[in-house]
């Protein structure tokens, strides 16, 4: 016979609350099997906020971040920092950093463009933040609308986010051999190009030759429709390395196919393709008797602004030194940059890193190479965006962000580069949380990456910064006279290309 008495749910809940109350008395910082236990704070919502609750429960500084990973490992997405010695103490709070100068060469070139339409080329290096032409597509468009210019700039034969990119659609055959910044081993014959990639088309054997024309490695480009200046291109420049002859590429623009010899033997060679009228499509079929490195194609007009997107996911920036200097300089000569932007940080920001002197030193080597390879270019370091981590259930700015920003600022200062503090521009402390929670959201729920809407906003902020510098260089002295641009070496005007196609060698 069952008891007819009703059970008492009040007693049940009272016991649960009491047990949780007992658990909340547990010493904070307990660990079980190496996992730190989180405190039970049942009354957290109604108690006075406890500043001690935000105390860090993190491993000691510069502890080994897992098994030794190669720098820029995209698997761990956190570069393991070398053991660090004494270091400039990083400030605990993000400093309100004034953007440093250093854009003079670029601003002079922009003025020149405004006056006579001469070309200004920008190299924008970054990690997954600019993948798929995020940020750069909007920035390029704003600059091209304001100063003239067309084309999406340099496009590698293949990138991971090719399908995601809106400004140019790219398809390549599956038979390309690719080496890049994260390849464990780089063969001696194939130097990495400026984008951090090198591609080798399949060697055309006699057998492959006889089967079908489709046997060759190919790549096809189709311009995107979103931005008017990049819908058509006036010329395309194919960049390739040395190799066995006679090599050939069949270039098809808007249905019109022309074979061209690939005869250059320098470290970097260029094939200029000039369609009869601005085109929207280009297909390249490669027929090479021996292995020959191919880098990418630049789509551009003859003057105005060209902006190249060099994105590489997982990159901390440090591995750019894997690009041989000779190759980098050859690209520098061919592309004649006036501004180099370095936008990194999310792959090295990790709460376990207490100091970033090692990062500043490594990036100084990168900046130094850039300055030598692109002597006419200004360098702009973009301070990292806000990135959140979760502490006791709440999303806050990762403690490493202000430390890394300070290192990036020092990097710019010590190398006479310009610095733009994206973290502050986004809204500073905890801005990532509001970007994620905005409606519609501006950032993804990894609390690290912005989405296309957020990228559009960042591009606008960056463009505004550049234009403020353009109008009032050397802030914060708005009354200062405009530097005399005539006193600076003006870029030599490039003679407009008249030939239908030409091969030129860049020593």
């Amino acid at each position: 016979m069952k008891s007819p008495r009703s059970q008492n749910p009040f007693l049940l809940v009272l016991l649960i609350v009491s047990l949780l109350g007992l658990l909340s008395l547990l010493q904070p910082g307990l660990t079980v099997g190496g996992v730190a236990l989180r405190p039970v704070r049942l009354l957290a919502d109604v108690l006075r906020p406890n500043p001690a609750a935000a105390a860090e429960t993190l491993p000691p500084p510069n502890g080994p971040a897992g098994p030794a990973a190669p720098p820029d490992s995209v698997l761990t997405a956190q570069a393991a920092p070398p053991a660090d010695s004494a270091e400039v103490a990083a400030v605990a709070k993000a400093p309100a950093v004034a953007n440093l100068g250093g854009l003079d060469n670029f601003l002079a070139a922009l003025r020149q463009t405004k006056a006579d339409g001469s070309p200004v080329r920008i190299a924008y290096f970054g990690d997954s933040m600019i993948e798929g032409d995020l940020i750069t597509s909007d920035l390029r468009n704003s600059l091209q609308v304001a100063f003239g210019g067309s084309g999406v700039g340099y496009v590698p034969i293949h990138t991971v986010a090719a399908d995601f990119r809106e400004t140019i659609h790219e398809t390549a055959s599956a038979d390309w051999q690719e080496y890049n910044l994260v390849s464990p081993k780089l063969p001696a014959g194939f130097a990495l190009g400026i984008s951090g990639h090198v591609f080798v088309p399949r060697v055309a054997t006699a057998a492959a030759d006889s089967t079908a024309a489709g046997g060759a490695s190919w790549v096809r480009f189709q311009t995107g429709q979103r931005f008017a200046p990049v819908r058509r291109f006036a010329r395309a420049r194919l960049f390739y390395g040395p190799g066995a002859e006679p090599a050939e590429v069949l270039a098809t623009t808007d249905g019109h196919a022309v074979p061209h010899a690939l005869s250059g033997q320098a470290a970097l060679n260029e094939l200029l393709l000039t369609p009869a009228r601005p085109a929207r499509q280009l297909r390249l079929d490669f027929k090479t008797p021996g292995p020959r490195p191919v880098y990418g194609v630049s789509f551009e007009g003859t003057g105005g602004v060209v902006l190249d997107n060099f994105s590489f996911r997982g990159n901390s920036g440090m591995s750019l030194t894997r690009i041989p200097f000779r190759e980098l300089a050859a690209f520098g000569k061919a592309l004649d940059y006036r501004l180099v932007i370095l936008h990194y940080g999310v792959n090295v920001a990790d709460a376990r890193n207490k100091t970033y002197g090692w990062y500043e030193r490594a990036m100084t080597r990168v900046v130094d190479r850039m300055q030598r390879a692109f002597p006419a270019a200004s360098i702009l370091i973009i301070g990292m965006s806000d990135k959140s981590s979760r502490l006791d259930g709440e999303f806050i700015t990762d403690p490493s962000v202000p430390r890394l920003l300070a290192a990036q600022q020092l990097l710019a200062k010590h190398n006479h580069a310009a610095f733009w503090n994206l973290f502050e521009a986004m809204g500073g402390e905890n801005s990532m949380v509001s970007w994620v929670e905005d409606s519609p959201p501006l950032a993804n729920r990894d609390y690290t990456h912005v989405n296309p809407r957020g990228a559009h906003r960042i591009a606008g902020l960056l463009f505004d910064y550049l234009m403020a510098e353009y109008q009032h260089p050397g802030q914060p002295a708005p009354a200062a006279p405009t530097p005399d641009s005539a006193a600076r070496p003006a870029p030599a005007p490039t003679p407009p290309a008249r030939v239908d196609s030409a091969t030129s060698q860049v020593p």
Partner: protein
Amino acid sequence: MDLLRSALAELDPDRLLSQFVYHPKSPLLFNTGFFLLLFLAFLGVYQLLREHHRARLLYVTAFSLFFYYKSSGWYFLLLVFSTIIEYHFARWIADSGSPGRRKLLLVLSLCVNLGMLFYFKYTNFFLSGYHALTGQPVPILHVLLPVGISFYTFQTLSYTLDVYRGQLAPLRSISDFAFFVTFFPQLVAGPIVRASDFIPQIKNKPFISREGMGRAVVLIAAGLFKKAVISDYISLNYVDRIFDQPGLYSGVENLLGVYGYALQIYCDFSGYSDIAIGIALLLGFRLPPNFLSPYQSTSITEFWRRWHISLSSWLRDYLYIPLGGNRKGVGRQYLNLFLTMLLGGLWHGASLTFVLWGALHGAALAVDKLFKQVFRPGNNWLIKLLGWVITFHFVCFCWIFFRAGTFEVASQVLHQIIYNPRPDLLLQVLGSFRPVFVLVALGYALHFVPDGVTLHLEGAMGRRSVVAQAVLVTMIIWLVIQVKSAEIQPFIYFQF
């Protein structure tokens, strides 16, 4: 005593008071610490009012309205309005002798109910649809969707329709009716409780049997685990990221994202339902089960008998059967199935992706019926296995549209799965997100636990002392706290 005094000193009166005010970003969910404390206080008074029927009813109704106010602010007046209107309509319908007048009253009631749902949920959807078709500029209204409106309008509709059909006598006390409409456990996220199931329980004195208590404890513990451990963890640390920008991930990552989402939505939705059913049991009310391990289904028809049962049976009884059901020929039956699911899709949200989701399920139900009639497949294990594989993957395929929000995102997911599959990355992905996929595996494993085991567990829990029951729930809550405050998985992009 000192402990208590120091605890009281730490109490922040402003923060305590602000907990009782509506905050759009912090609704009063069952899995929050504040709800637990509030529920304890609520139960104390509820026990005291055991013998006082009317006072207990008013007390629970007032608490329910407060609960709704915490989720929706001043929209709780809408709930009050809806309650008063429907109470009177049902009475007028029952009291009216002329069929014409009854029909007119029913139509008016439907207009009010559906009009409210339509205005708050679909105005902008249809305005922008009109704009897309004609190119005419339209004003976009800033209408905030009142939480749970889809659930409680369906609940009151079932009452009025049952009264109209003569299957239910109308309530003669508005406090009884208000209690039914506002009953807080299922108010904001279901299950959709039928008037005919619930109303007979109102007049009973709350009685919680040992089995009921055991079942409540297991439901609440399992619900919390599903909702606040599995679903919340895998969505934040993996699934949301994939659906934010699928083009940045390889096909295998996208595919795992889809499987992950299938588990996430089940755990989220059924977990919250389970907690609601468990809490109702603690108050002495039995609500019907809402989910029965739906991914065990070996056909799409079976899936809809196991998934969100309170909605699918509502749609069957108040939409499919009135449309003619299977009584007007086979062709008409397929059309009715399709239309029912199409509207069922739209019920989930004002977007064409939900319409497509509903249409796909509707079409599949029709195809399933046709297939079974034509081929009469046997019932051996091979056919069952094949049916299970097809059903599960079809459901997952439909979830892509349900989750993506836009066709663009959905097509990116499909594009990556088809054109950039990269199965070679599988082990790397699983290894890099180990906690996520351990939870996914655990979630699916628990899903395939036979119902008998769960029943046995409920019975065993019922025979245990209240201390053991409290320990089980406390352990789960402690686990929830651990997971909720754990660091997030670092983002990882693979080269592909």
